[in-house]
């Protein structure tokens, strides 16, 4: 196993009767960006906590850079950088002070740590804010500083637990660019959890979708989307009964049909070419759609395919607990017909 690899072997985490992670296995190659995608409460952060030595697995094994997360926790901490979902900063301290202490704890001299702090503050564009306490930073600035804290010791492997949650679009793109650059320039292995589909699509070489404590699917985003077929026609009706009738009318024209509430999704290659035929067939049966769109497959469709529910619905279920705004999620390319 190389120094940049991560491996999870049947990881299980139970809290009393509740199973937060249930038999999760995957491997991340050195220098890869691995997206760990799932709604709130799916088990992403618990998996990260086990792999970063903050929590013990109930069962199973985790290896980070070849080190066992249970028996060689100190070595794991030395080679891995971690930016947790909850930003861990002392609000009364200043950014340079925090980064310097972090560097010194990782064995740098004070001078080395100060130089590194200056370098990282420039990297995350916080150089001009070093004179104010971190408590006065905006959410985006705090997230950027937290990322800098994780990079102080130049880790081989970087764990980013929902690094862009709560950020404005510009800050998110900044973080994305930095993640790409760290991976490209330094060959850093990056384990990225996210609840944003577009983020996983944008950044990850490979993804695993976790839902209700278990991994549902794993692979390259393009492969997973391609496996669904190239396009789908989505027809929405006012009544549930119309959806059933539409299914009877047009199923034979498509490779695969899926019903999602009042919308029927019709999958086949070059679906755009037969839109007129579909409209005519429905019209002939006296069915009047309220909307018709043409969609190229997205990770949302992959999620629907493997879990039977929309990513957005799962996220909404968790919204009151997490305070996350319903409907804020990533979408793939979607165009109207």
């Amino acid at each position, binding site marked *: 196993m190389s120094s940049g690899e991560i491996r999870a072997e049947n990881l299980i985490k139970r809290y009393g009767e509740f199973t937060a992670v249930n038999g999760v296995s995957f491997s991340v190659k050195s220098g890869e960006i691995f997206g760990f995608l799932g709604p709130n409460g799916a088990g992403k952060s618990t998996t990260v906590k086990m792999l*970063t*030595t*903050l*929590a*013990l697995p109930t069962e199973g094994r985790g290896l980070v850079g070849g080190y066992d997360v249970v028996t060689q*926790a*100190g070595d794991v*901490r*030395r080679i891995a950088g*971690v930016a*947790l979902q*909850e*930003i*861990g*900063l*002392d*609000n*009364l*301290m200043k950014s340079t*002070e925090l980064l310097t*202490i*972090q*560097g*010194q*704890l*990782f*064995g*740098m*001299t004070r001078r*080395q740590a100060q130089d*590194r702090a200056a*370098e*990282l503050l*420039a*990297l*995350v*564009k916080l150089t001009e804010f070093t004179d104010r*306490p971190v408590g006065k930073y905006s959410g985006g600035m705090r997230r950027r500083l937290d990322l800098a*804290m994780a990079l102080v*010791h*130049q880790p081989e492997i970087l764990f980013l637990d929902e690094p862009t949650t709560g950020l404005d679009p510009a800050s998110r793109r*900044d973080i994305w*660019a*930095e993640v790409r*650059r760290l991976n490209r*320039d*330094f*060959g850093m292995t990056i384990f990225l959890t996210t609840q944003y589909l577009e983020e996983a699509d944008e950044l990850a070489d490979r993804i695993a979708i976790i839902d209700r404590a278990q991994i549902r699917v794993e692979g390259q985003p393009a492969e997973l989307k391609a496996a669904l077929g190239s396009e789908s026609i989505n027809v929405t009706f006012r009544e549930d009964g119309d959806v059933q009738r539409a299914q009877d009318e047009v199923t034979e024209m498509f490779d695969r049909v899926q019903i999602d509430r009042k919308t029927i999704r019709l999958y086949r290659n070059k679906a755009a070419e037969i839109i007129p035929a579909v409209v005519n067939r429905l019209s002939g049966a006296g069915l009047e759609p309220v909307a018709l769109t043409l969609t190229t497959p997205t990770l949302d469709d992959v999620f629907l395919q493997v879990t039977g529910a929309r990513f957005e619905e799962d996220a909404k279920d968790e919204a009151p607990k997490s305070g996350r705004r319903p409907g804020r999620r990533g979408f793939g390319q979607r165009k109207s017909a």
Partner: protein
Amino acid sequence: MAAIATTRAGIASAPVERTPFLLQVSMMAWRTLITNIRVPGVILPPLIISGFFLLVYNSTLSGAANFFLRGQSYLGFILPLSVVSAALSGASVAGQSIVRDIENGYFDKLMLTPVNRAALLLGPMIAGAILLAMQTLVVVAMALLLGLQPETGALGLLAVIGIALLLGVGFSGFTVGIALRTGNAAATSGASFLFFPLSFLTATFVPYDLLTGWIQTAAFVNPITYILDAMRTILNIGWDGEIILRGVGSCLALGIVLFIWAYTGLRARTKRK
């Protein structure tokens, strides 16, 4: 974003050495100190309370105290009580610092570094004691302004501050233990008041010999009695080795018990679950 200028190899080679334990402790103490100094609301109340006690007790009781102190200074008698009060009310500084770290997630961030766990405990405790010593210095200065003339001179005053420092480390251990076990600011703040009865179940306003009944029994088993006695002897009588040793011993005994309490709290908090 700007690009990192250095190469991976250039930085990765630096953090191989392990930071010495004492340096880790001093770093943790330093950050607790500066963060508390930045919030005057943490430091000023204990100082005001101590100064208030000194001023009020000295003004109201110094006349009446002539008959039992036989010419000794009442200021020298009551100043140790102010110092102990400061230690009690200032003891929550270390605990509150740890609670703040737990609440804002910085404690977890530290747990992800190779920091020695004991440094997380000792740093805030030492910082709390240093703050207490600084507060004691101010209270002693106030007593000097009110006319205190210690029998043992400047050295005696330093000894009183030293005892206060020891006492501060001990009391800090108590609040740190609560902070680590509960991770709750209100519980930590409330817990520091649990020790307040100790400063009254003793020879608070009159010498131990004048106490009778249950309060004398309580004072006998209360380590604060011996700490007050040592400070008072230094200020009003002189260098009495036996009494001072008993006071310092009480401080150490209290400190050891409360350090064990804090350490087991740290073990419970940092044990991976």
